[in-house]
């Protein structure tokens, strides 16, 4: 059985290890009166636009756990992720007027934080597409994966441990759903480089999962 097949076989076991935390979010997005999510966001956004401090705190409480996870995935360290989280919220609060209301506010917010993270990575000149092919090829093949022992936290750590360039492409392509053309434009690389970076990221992750 292929390595991927081993992983898939234990997919259901991975779910038991807390991978689907989003189920809890649905409850938290309703207030005490049972107000629906879109209305709650609209009300909060409007209050935040007016500078309501309490509304800003509430918006922070609702968004920050998920956005912090996004920042961790992109930045690779908690300190950097905290900085990006703060910068992202400053930008978000200042750009609320540009949210037209079409589309989900959470999706719009996610873009804000992703772009903030990318800007920080560019500023640090961290988006270097490193790791030679010889290292990647050395990871090819191997035994059965230990996916049944991998939970969300372990997977997050593995993604955070990827080199910045691979990590960014992997996050944008696999989790955010960007096309390689979009990634190439965003990062200033070629589509071929984007594809190869993604392939290398998958192989590194696979190797690390197998070795756990």
């Amino acid at each position, binding site marked *: 059985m292929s390595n*991927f*097949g081993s*992983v*898939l076989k234990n*997919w259901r076991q*991975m779910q038991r290890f807390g*991978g*689907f*935390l*989003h189920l*809890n*979010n649905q409850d938290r997005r309703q207030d005490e009166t049972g107000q629906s999510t879109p209305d709650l966001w609209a009300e909060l956004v409007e209050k935040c636009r007016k*500078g309501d*401090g309490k509304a800003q*705190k509430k918006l922070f409480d609702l968004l*920050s*756990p*998920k956005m*912090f*996870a996004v920042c*961790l995935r992109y930045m690779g360290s908690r300190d950097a992720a905290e900085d990006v*989280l*703060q*910068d992202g*919220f*400053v*930008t978000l*609060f*200042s*750009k609320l007027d*540009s949210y*037209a209301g*079409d*589309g*989900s506010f959470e*999706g*719009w917010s*996610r*873009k804000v934080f992703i*772009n*903030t993270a990318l*800007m920080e990575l560019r*500023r640090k000149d961290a988006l270097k597409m490193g790791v030679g092919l010889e290292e990647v090829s050395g990871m090819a093949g191997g035994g059965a994966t230990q996916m049944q022992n991998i939970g*969300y936290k372990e*997977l*997050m750590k593995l*993604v955070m441990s990827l080199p910045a360039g691979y990590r960014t492409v992997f996050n944008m392509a*696999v*989790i*955010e*759903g*960007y*096309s390689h*053309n*979009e990634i190439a*434009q*965003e990062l200033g690389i070629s589509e071929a480089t984007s594809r190869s970076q993604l392939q290398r990221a*998958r192989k590194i*992750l*696979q190797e690390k999962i197998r070795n756990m």
Partner: protein
Amino acid sequence: MQNDIFEFDSMVKSMLSEAEEEVPSQVWSTLESRMRRTRTALLWRRVAVAASVAAAIGVAAFLGLRQDGNNSDFQNIETVAFADNPQEDGRCGDENPALETVKTVRPEMLIAEALAVKDAVRPAADAPEMAAVPEEAATAAAEEVVASSGPEEEECALPQENGKYAEETGSAEAFARMEWEDSRRPSGRRRISLTAGGDMQTNGHPGSVAQSAHWLASSHDSPAKTTVTQTSTNSTYSIPMSFGLKVRFDLDRGGKWSLGTGVTYSLMERTFTGVYQEAEDGVVINTYNSDIHNTLHYIGIPVSLYYDIISGSRVNFYAFAGGSVEKLIFNKYRVAGYPGVKSYGDTSDKLQYSVAAGIGVQFKVNDFFGLYLDPSIRYYFDNGQPVSIRTQQPLMMSFEVGARFNF
């Protein structure tokens, strides 16, 4: 194989896309402090813009009122003074026949002018150009304050409509137009500062004014006009003073270079012994020998380039150089000691230019407020200005102090 890759990606995505992490408590407190500072800075920025616009409107209105005022007293005024170094630059007014006032004359022209009367003072309404300058310049400075938002913003390339989250937002294009402001970031932020201050200049060694000759004799061929003539070689000059509001904004991310502009008001006074000759209907009716008090009011627009030499947490040292363009808005002569004698005033169409350079120091009280001291050397170009400390001592030391608010 491809199916396996797709399944792997889907599995990872399902675990991480909606994941949440516990946020450290200090994140919100730090964020709250930053936003509070940003709100304060935004408020002060709006105050600065409003103050600049109000100052510009006030200057324009003042100049407008001056132009519309009753200038009948100015119609027949001729002010004559003498310089120790007659210039070839047309200060005599020969280049501009419409110039209402002869500020200096060559000695060889005195006799000729004694027989011919110069043109009357042009009404101030004919000199409108300066009215627009402070308003335009200050408005431009205010617009710069509003528009300035940091270095080149980066526009993020958005996923196309077939991207995963593009279909959720439906506003990829709107998002792509968002401009990322580096002013929100702790590093690489461009500052804007508003300063309010005043300066005093040295008045120690002014040049003398040459004494006049028989240049007040009325001509049988021309009607006499009211004149004010200095008969003493020296004047007593008060310390020239200026007050102004300036805006200074960084030109680079590092904050080393910055550009400042604004609006300034300057006041100069001098007292001299002279002759006030009052004429009415072309006939001299009174002549007074008295001390005459002359007050000059200027409105100007300074532009300076600043370079931060040392930027510390509490003290900044910087060098600056620049210039100023000023317009005489009011030049008043008041005859002392004679109750009921009118005071007369005139203006000049020409602008006064000056250049300056100096070293400044700012003491930071906190991130937003500091006190500064800017000693400098300034040189004033005459350009047909009435006699003042600036024409007699064009090179002066200046000491400007004030408060600076940083945003």
